[in-house]
Structure formats: C-alpha cells, structure tokens
C-alpha cells in the first residue's frame, strides 16, 4: 500500500472500506490483461458488498483470461475530503489504480437516490461527468440494474446501458471491446457496433422531442442503424447460468453479511405496484440439487455462518421446505443457519418457522403492504388478514418475540380507513402475541411504512404520487394510532420519496437537475444524514424544472412515456387491462396457478416459467 494512502487511512472512519485484500478478491496482472473493467457501486462499501449482482459479474469477468473486474464504492465524505486534499483520485480496491485508467467503469443502478453519487464518484475519479465531454482516452461509462429500465434521467452521464439481466451481455460486450481495441475503433464506432447487441441502449443515438408547452412527446433513434426499442435480456436457464461460488468475503461487516443463493428469479404474483415483478419475469426456479451444491461450496469457500435463500418471494419457491431442511441437516453442525428475506404470510407455516430457526433465530418479516382487504385487492397482493394472523400465530408459537411488518401509504385509491387499517392490523398482531404468551417486555411488532412511488413499467405507471402534505398527514395519523406499548412505527422521509418519484418517472431534462444538485453538494441521498430537500429544490429551481410536474402527473393510457423505448416484454395492453382491474378492485390470479393472465412475456421471449420439482 502506498504511504500516501496509509496516511489517509489513518485519518478516516472505517478505513477497511478502502483497503481491499479480502478473501476471494482477485488481483490480476495489470499488464497482461487486455480489458480492465471496474464495477462501481454508487454507495458505501457495506451496502455495495451486499449486492448479489456485483458478485455475479465479478465472477463472470474474472473467470475470463483476457479481462479483469475490480471494485470501487462511493467513499464516505470524510474519505472523499482526504482524497481531494491529497490529490488522490478515486481508485479501485484490487490494484489501487485510478478508475480513470480502466477501459470500462460499470455502475449499477439499484435505486434512484444513488444517482447523485454517480456524479460524485465520476468527479472524484477525474472523469468528465457528461458523456459528451469525455474523449477517447476516458473509460467507457456503462450502467445496468433495475433503474436502467428508465435510463433517461441519467442518460447524459452514461455512454451505454445494459437493459435486463447482465450474465450473457457482459461477455458479448467484452468480446466487442476486445475486437474494437484490436481494430483501434473510435468510441463512437464501438458504440454503433454495441447497439447490435440485444439489450444495449446508447442514449446518444436517440433524440427526444418536447412540445411547446414542455410536454414530453417521444424519443426516437437519431441514427439509421439503431433500434427503435431496446428489449431487456433474459437468462433462459438459471441452473446453467454462472453463479459466484467464491464471492469476495467483506472484511468489514456488510449490511447483508451472509452467503446469498438466488433460488429463483422473477415472481409470479403480479402485485401491481411492483417493478421487480415485471422486469424480472418470467419465474425461473433453480433446481434443489443446484441450490444444495452451491450451498455446500459457499460454506467451504466463504466461511459465513448464514445462508440467505434470496429471491423476490422465497416462500413461493416450490421446494422451499425440503431445501431448507437439507441445508440445515448438512451444515448445522458447523453453525450455519438459513435465513429468508421478507415472507408472504399466506405461504408461512409452523413447519417453515421451525426449520429456519434450528441454529439461530433470525428476524421475521411479513409484507401485507396495505391495511385493508379492499386495498390489498386493488394492489393484487392477495394475502388476507387470516393469512397474516395465521403466520404471526405460528411464529409466536415457535418462539419468535418480534415481528416486522411492511406497509405502504399513498397507494392508488387509498382512503383514511385503509391507513387506519395498518394500525389496526399491527395492533391485532400485537394482541395475538400477548395471547400467545410472549412476555410483554419482549414482544415487539415493528411497522415499517414506506410511501408508494409509481414506477415505470408497472400497472400503476400512469398514476401520480400522492401529494407530500397528504403523505405527511397519513404518517401523523399512523403515529397517533400506534402508541401502544410494543408497537414501533418507522416511516420514510416523504421528501425523499418525492424526489425518488421525480427521478423514477423522469426524462432526460433531469440530467441538468442532477448536475446542479451535485454542484450544490448533494450526495449519499439514500442516507438521512445527508439527504437535504432544500438543496434538491434549489437544484430544480436553478435548472428551471418543476419537480411536482413529474411526481404528480397522471398519465393517460395514450400519453407517450419517457421509458416507452425500453421493452420489458410485458405488453402495454396487459398493463392497461390490469390497471382497469385494479380500479375495479378485481384480483388477478397468480400466474403459477395455471391461469395465464396474458402479460405477453413468454411468447415474446419464447420462454416459459420454470418450477423446480423436489426429489430430495
């Protein structure tokens, strides 16, 4: 480690974030590796290292002989200050080389409020922010992840987006880059070749038109060889897809400090607010034998004491119980337990409860999302109050003393009665805990309430966000309704949800706002200690853009949408139909039931949902 960095590290908090050298990290011979890429996570190390996508791509790229992938995270502001004072540009953890010396800087877009950190990191790296300002010597700045499904708000800063699942595309892109290097292609020539790869979107090849009143009119290719719409990429067979069995083990505790095994991708439920449920279709389950083999290798290769079976809804995994039993039987002796992310209350049983706590008890989270059956039907959540009480009862009987519940406020059609329903449900779970004999001092029901954000490509994409003032009064109402001992209410800052909605639904004009916000000092906006609504409002004012017009706009079905050139494979007709059913309070059955709701994805991709049987 160079002495300058050593000196800086002695001045900052949590220096282990910046040292690298973790178990399973890969340091390649710089001069003998043709393509150098760096995975850039626009948040701090502990958050970024919890992201499975990083580990997947790190594994794929580093298993090639001709390429390397290193990692970089957003340095905490104390570190950034030291780096600026000492003229140390943003560097990658493995080689400690400046990231501007790499061929590709690949950002992941996990949440809109990390956009400001992309500018913050480019600036720290000494890479010009705007792709139009970068020249041949600068790295190609690319991005992927869920927020790439509406890439427009950050289109000015990104040379190329990968839409959809990155496993296959990344290799095609690296092959192209390798060929481009040998042929000494200019950046623009390379980008023109890149758009021939399905799933690649190069924003500079498109032009956006606006009406005289400022309305967004549409986005069209500005070049003859560029597709009108970019369709997402899908991995066909999850069992055959590469999966990281030697992931980097964080040296300082990550937010999710455990092994992650993805048991399936996609979700069959069709919740109408959920973007992941659309963009990761169709459901592809992993075979149980694959999961068990991966678990065994991961225990040996990482030394973690917990396996998280991850997916959008793990209790829906067909062989879930058999797989949990088998993993626990095999690894409990080494102190390894299984944990599950938030669960569906209608799929939680006493047996499942018993299995997930054989080694040590982890927290238990259910997500009813709304307080009344009427509203749960509108959002197509399906879960009933009986389901929730049954699940909570099973959990209390099996020894849990604390349960977390996730809800949303501001959902379309929501009334005060629906909001009061949240407090009422939480109170009933609490009463059930008491009745089940959980000691009063220990009993805790945590109610986490987020504010609904209408996300692109969802059934609710046309809906406006609820007014800030109204969200706040709903939060106040909930506070006064959840005063009982044992109830803990958490809610998100409504201001943050407002800005998030603007960027979720935004168009390319928001690039200017991001620049102003960055110049005013916005960064780490996902962190309440750094998010500053005044700075954001000032940025909008300086850019001459009205944020309310973005967050509160109700689109009609025929309005052009800023994200309509990105194709998820789910048809517009289906979304329209589902939206009408939502307004009528009609429930649509789970696609797993065999009643195909007709979203159009399977025929478009010549693919089918895959459900794993269990031979365990």
């Amino acid at each position, binding site marked *: 480690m160079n002495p300058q960095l050593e000196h800086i590290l002695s001045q900052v908090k949590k*220096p282990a974030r910046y040292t690298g*050298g973790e178990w399973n990290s890969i340091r390649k011979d710089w001069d003998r590796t043709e393509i150098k890429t760096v995975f850039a996570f626009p948040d701090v190390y502990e958050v970024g290292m919890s992201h499975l996508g990083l580990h997947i791509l790190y594994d794929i790229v580093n298993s090639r002989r001709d390429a390397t992938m290193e990692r970089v995270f957003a340095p905490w502001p104390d570190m950034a200050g030291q780096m600026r004072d000492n003229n140390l540009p943003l560097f990658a953890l493995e080689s400690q080389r400046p990231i501007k010396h790499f061929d590709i800087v690949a950002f992941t877009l996990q949440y809109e409020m990390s956009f400001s950190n992309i500018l913050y990191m480019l600036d720290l790296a000494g890479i010009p922010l705007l792709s139009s300002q970068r020249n041949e010597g600068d790295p190609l700045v690319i991005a992927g992840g869920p927020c790439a499904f509406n890439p427009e708000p950050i289109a000015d800063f990104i040379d190329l987006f990968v839409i959809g699942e990155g496993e296959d595309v990344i290799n095609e892109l690296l092959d192209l880059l390798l060929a481009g290097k040998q042929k000494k292609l200019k950046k623009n020539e390379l980008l023109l070749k890149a758009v021939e790869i399905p799933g690649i979107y190069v924003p500079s090849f498109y032009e956006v038109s606006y009406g005289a009143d400022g309305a967004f009119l549409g986005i069209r290719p500005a070049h003859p060889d560029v597709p009108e719409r970019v369709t997402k990429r899908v991995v066909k067979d999850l069992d055959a897809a590469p999966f990281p069995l030697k992931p980097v083990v964080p040296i300082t505790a990550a937010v999710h400090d455990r092994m992650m095994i993805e048991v399936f991708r996609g979700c069959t439920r069709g919740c109408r607010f959920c973007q992941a449920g659309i963009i990761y279709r169709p459901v592809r389950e992993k075979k149980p034998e694959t999961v068990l083999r991966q678990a065994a290798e991961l225990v*040996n290769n990482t*030394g973690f004491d917990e396996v998280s079976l991850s997916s959008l809804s793990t209790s829906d995994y067909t062989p879930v119980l058999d797989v949990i039993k088998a993993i626990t039987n095999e690894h409990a002796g080494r*102190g390894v337990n299984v944990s599950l992310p938030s669960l569906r209350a209608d799929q939680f049983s006493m047996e499942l409860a018993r299995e997930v706590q054989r080694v040590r008890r982890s927290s238990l989270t259910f997500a009813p999302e709304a307080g009344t059956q009427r509203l749960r039907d509108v959002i197509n959540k399906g879960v009933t109050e009986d389901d929730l009480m049954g699940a909570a009862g099973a959990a209390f009987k099996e020894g849990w003393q604390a349960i977390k519940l996730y809800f949303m406020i501001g959902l379309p059609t929501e009334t005060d009665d629906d909001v009061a329903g949240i407090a009422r449900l939480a109170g009933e779970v609490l009463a059930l805990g008491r009745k089940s004999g959980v000691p009063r001092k220990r009993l805790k029901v945590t109610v986490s309430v987020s504010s609904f954000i209408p996300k692109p490509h969802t059934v609710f994409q046309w809906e406006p966000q609820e007014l800030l003032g109204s969200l706040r009064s709903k939060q106040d109402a909930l506070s006064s309704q959840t005063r009982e001992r044992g109830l803990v209410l958490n809610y998100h800052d409504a201001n943050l949800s407002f800005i998030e909605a603007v960027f979720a639904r935004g168009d390319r004009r928001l690039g200017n706002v991001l620049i102003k916000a960055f110049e005013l000092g916005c960064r780490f906006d996902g962190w309440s200690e750094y998010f500053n609504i005044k700075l954001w409002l000032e940025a909008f004012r300086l850019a001459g853009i009205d944020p309310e017009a973005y967050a509160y706009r109700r689109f009609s079905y025929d309005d052009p949408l800023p994200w309509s050139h990105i194709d998820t494979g789910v048809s517009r007709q289906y979304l329209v139909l589902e939206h009408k059913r939502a307004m009528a309070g009609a429930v649509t059955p789970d696609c797993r039931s065999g009643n195909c709701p007709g979203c159009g994805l399977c025929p478009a991709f010549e693919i089918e949902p895959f459900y794993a049987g269990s031979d365990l």
Partner: protein
Amino acid sequence: MPRYRMMYAKEGPAKYISHLDLIRAFERAARRAGLPFAFTQGFNPHPKLSFAAPLAVGTAGEAEFADIELSTNIAAGVVAKSLSSAMPEGLRLIEVRPVAQSAPALMAMVDRAVYTARAVLADPPQNETLRGAIDSFLARPQILVERRSKTGEKRKCDIKTGIFMLSASMNNDIIELVAELKTGSSGNVKCEELITAFMEESGLRAREGFALSRRALFSAGRSAREMLW
C-alpha cells in the same frame, strides 16, 4: 474441549480491520479451514474464540494472541496448517500450540505490550536533544492525557505508572519511539495517547501521522515478563 493458542501477525491491509471484524474474520477462516468449532450456548451460538487484547485500528500487530476451542482433538500442527491457508491478506498465522483447559484466559494474562512508532519529523532534533526530551518527559510527576468517558465527557488521566519504558532514536529525519506500556482491563495505556503527550511536551512535529506497530504482548511473569504461551 481442546483449546489452542494462536500467535499471529496483523499487518498490511489487515491493520485496518476493527476488533469486531477481526473476530468474524477468524471465525470465517476457521470455518473455511474445516475446523470443528466448539460453540457457545444460547440463542445465538458462536464459536469459542478469545483474544488477548484488542488492537487499535491502523496499528499493526507483529505477535498477537488468540485462543480457539474445538470440539475434537486435532494436532496443533494440523490446525496451524489448515488455518494458515484460509486467512485473508495481512493476517498471518505464526504458530499454534495446544493449551490446557485450565490455563488462564488470555485477557487475564496480558499485562504489558511493546510498541514501536515511526514518523517523519518536520524539524529533526539531534540525538542528544531527543534523549533530553525523553528524560524530562519521564521525570514529570504526572503524565496527563485526555480521555472521553462512555457518555462523551472529557477527563484527565495520569498514565505515568503505566509507562514501563520509553526510548527514542533518530534515523535521518525519521523518529522511532519504542514503548512498553501497561495493557489489559485495568490501567491500560494506549500508544497513541502516549505519543500525543510526548510530542506536546517535546515540541516536536511529525510531518504526517505515526506508523504504529505492537511488537509483542507479555504477561506479568514471575521474574520479569513472559510471552503469552
């Protein structure tokens, strides 16, 4: 349950691992090495691992000590070999020895530590001047340092009785301090606070920070001091 004592170095990137993360790093290394842990009882069982004395983040350790308990008897050499190959960069296992079940805990044994501290000085003094500064520093009736209590209140502490030895030498413009300090649950003296107090007293100025290393840990032995084996 068989108990083993490990001597290891914590250097390079591992210098920056906090104590809590270090415990996890050892636990994970032992699991990767396939060693059969003994677990604590209770709701959240964890491997039986205990450390002699936490090291400040950023300070290297050249001969640190920790104990691990296993559920079956394994030759110490085998434990050493398998664990060595499972340690992350900068954590280097030096030696493993079996210890008796009845042996006192490392935390109870440790009594003092030897540190070295190096820094580039802005105005390097003559060796004689430096010696004078050390002598007058140690001759003070009290050596007061500022500490914060858990509630954040500042208070003055006298560390004089916890300084067993302090020497200094110059090599060009680099100062090297060697200190033997009281270490453990009572009367513990941090190397950083000693350096701060000395630099204040002597009027010397380091260009950048000090590079610190804990060279050895000792118990209060029968005659003088002994290693923690």
